[in-house]
């Protein structure tokens, strides 16, 4: 099964102070390598802050483009992973490692299907 692991961050606070940035990158990099070595890694990456987001809508034949994230909430998606494992327990095992490395909550969601 494929699972999305969403990295939930609170954008109202600075997630990683400058002096912790390097250590965080090192921890996350190590877990990424571990996932690749275990053969569960599909794709993943960090996202720029949500104020860089743009929303595109199609309504009655017209397109509107607006600035900003879809929902103006404190909690935003800071990055994500897609992994392929046998079941939820295995996904939770990797989520635990990611949460430890990123020091923020990880939301695990199964894909309904994959194109």
């Amino acid at each position, binding site marked *: *099964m494929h*699972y999305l692991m969403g990295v939930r961050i609170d954008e109202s606070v600075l997630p990683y102070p400058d002096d912790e940035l390097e250590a965080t990158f090192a921890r996350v990099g190590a877990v990424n390598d571990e996932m690749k070595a275990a053969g569960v890694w599909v794709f993943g990456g960090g996202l720029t802050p949500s104020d860089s987001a743009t929303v595109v809508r199609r309504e009655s034949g017209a397109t509107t483009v607006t600035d900003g994230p879809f929902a103006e909430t404190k909690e935003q998606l800071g990055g994500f992973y897609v992994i392929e494992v*046998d*079941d*939820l*327990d295995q*996904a*939770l095992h990797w989520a635990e490692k990611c949460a430890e490395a990123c020091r923020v909550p990880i939301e*695990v*969601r*199964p894909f*309904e299907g994959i194109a």
Partner: protein
Amino acid sequence: MTCTDLTEVYRAEYGRCVATLTRLLGDLGLAEEAVQDAFATAVDTWGDDPPRNPGAWIVTTARNRAIDRLRRESTREARHAQSLLLHQADDEEVGPVRDDQLRLIFTCCHPALSPLAQTALTLRLIAGLEVPEIARAYLVPEATISQRIVRAKKKIRDAGIPYRVPEAPELPARLAPVLAVLYLVFNEGYTATSGELVRTDLSREAIRLARALAELMPDEPEVTGLLALLLLVEARRPARVGPSGELVVLTEQDRSLWDRELIAEGHELVRRCLRRDRPGPYQLQAAINAVHTDGPATDWTQVLALYDQLFELQPTPVVALNRAVAVAEVHGPALALAVVDELDLPDYHLLPATRADLLTRLDRPVEAAAAYDEAIALATNDTERAFLEDRRARLEV
């Protein structure tokens, strides 16, 4: 075969059969449908001559029903499931059946499900209770319970919650919600959230499930500890309510009414745990209850020592409050009151109730009355409220 007999077979076998069929079919929903089909057939065909092994009969019938059902469907998954079923041996499988049940308990109490969903699923799938029974026990509409069960089953399927017993490193974390569900079910039966004081059937189910779990996991001392705890609390049930339905506190209970057999069993289990020397919260609470049920009166010094140990493992305000009751017995009510006044437990009626009792013993009736009023306003169980009102009325304000 009478209707009651069949109900008993249903209670005893439903969870076991669903667990086995879930392994055979790989799908909880299909398993349940098949087992229900089989029970419906049993109602029509058993008559006065039920099979020697009703559980095996149900599993075989359910398996055949599932094959029939899958034959009518033409999807690839259905054909795959059908071929799996047809190639499985049809023996009694005592070992695997036990594993099936354990797997299903861990699935029902998976931490990815909400505690309420865990409880409802466990009562439905493991204990074999019907939705209306669960709804009655928790005083919520039937629709709420069935919706919760449907949603939980959907999450099990969609999120890929596996049917397996967790491995050793994850076992402590995964066992915790299982034990918590059984403890919750027992407590709901022992002090119902609302209405009358006890609902015996829920407590009985919890003990039955704890017994099954202790049999399945004999090397887990916390499982044995939980069973011992439930038995020792259950043993005092006959003395807990007086002739006119009023609550009788532990120190005033008629000890001759206690169930000696349950107490003996509970004590033996506690001794077995202590020998393993891997204490945990349930074992310590069982040990505390073993002291309460040992000899003509409680040895409070021993109780306090056990609460000290429990508080080290579980430094929660509820444990601190229970410990304070032992402090009052060993060091006097003034010291206990100082402990209680430090606690922050909003909306928990036993905090002001304990304060009220300590203030009464310290001969401070005006403050005691105020504390009783606070406790009465927070209590949701009729019998407990009546008890508090009676205590308040006895004060000489």
